[in-house]
């Protein structure tokens, strides 16, 4: 097996790659809990409206999901950056990619935060 092929995203540079690895490790934890809560939770999955609201009315879970959003967004968009860097190697292209994805990250993170806060303020029926 050729390890050069199996390792990707090295174009991100040492810091970008390190953050990709660290956020990936955190995601195992965050995504594991999310998948369990939303799909299993031994008979009481958080799927329908009231269950979602009850979950987000808890400050700890609200913080959990906001942090989860920031981490999964970073990991995902940083990964996209690495893929695009492999395809476009000029300084100008890479600067444009980095700027565009940074803006997308900030906009999505703000939207995700506002959405979570708005939902947490809806009265439970």
């Amino acid at each position, binding site marked *: 097996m050729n390890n050069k092929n199996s390792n990707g995203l090295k174009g991100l540079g040492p810091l970008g790659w390190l953050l990709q690895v660290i956020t*990936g490790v955190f995601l195992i934890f965050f995504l594991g809990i999310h998948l369990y809560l939303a799909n299993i939770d031994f008979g009481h999955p958080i799927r329908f409206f009231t269950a979602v609201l009850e979950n987000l009315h808890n400050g700890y879970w609200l913080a959990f999901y906001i942090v989860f959003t920031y981490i999964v967004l970073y990991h995902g968009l940083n990964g996209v950056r690495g893929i695009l860097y492999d395809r476009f190697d000029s300084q100008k292209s890479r600067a444009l990619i980095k700027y565009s994805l940074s803006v997308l990250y900030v906009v999505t993170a703000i939207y995700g935060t506002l959405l979570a806060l708005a939902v947490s303020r809806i009265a439970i029926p």
Partner: protein
Amino acid sequence: MNKTGIAGWFNIKDKGTGYFAFAFQRFSGLVIVIYLYMHLIFLSSLLDGRTTYNSLVQNITYGPFDIFIVMDMLLALVIFYHGANGIRLALNEFGIGLKHHKLFFYAYESISMVLLVLFLYYAYLFLGGH
């Protein structure tokens, strides 16, 4: 440098396990990012109230659009694959498993597929839970 673009990832003829791991890691990553944005859009319907949100969940879980369950299963497959291969790559950074890439790849993916089957089994079991 990969100048062939996304289409080039699927050209796995005469290429080894390493290339498959590389290509599918990227493909699965892109699928998950696209899903992430779809998920955010879907969750935005919480703001439309209980009737709208529950109706959407009902439609994609119990019909008439329960084909989404199959898509959810495929999504779970790419997530479990991506996670297992990602752990292998992270451990490689610490020098773990570098000498036996192939073995580690198959070992992690086998474990992740067992976990996937368990996850799908329990998710199916509790599909009726509200």
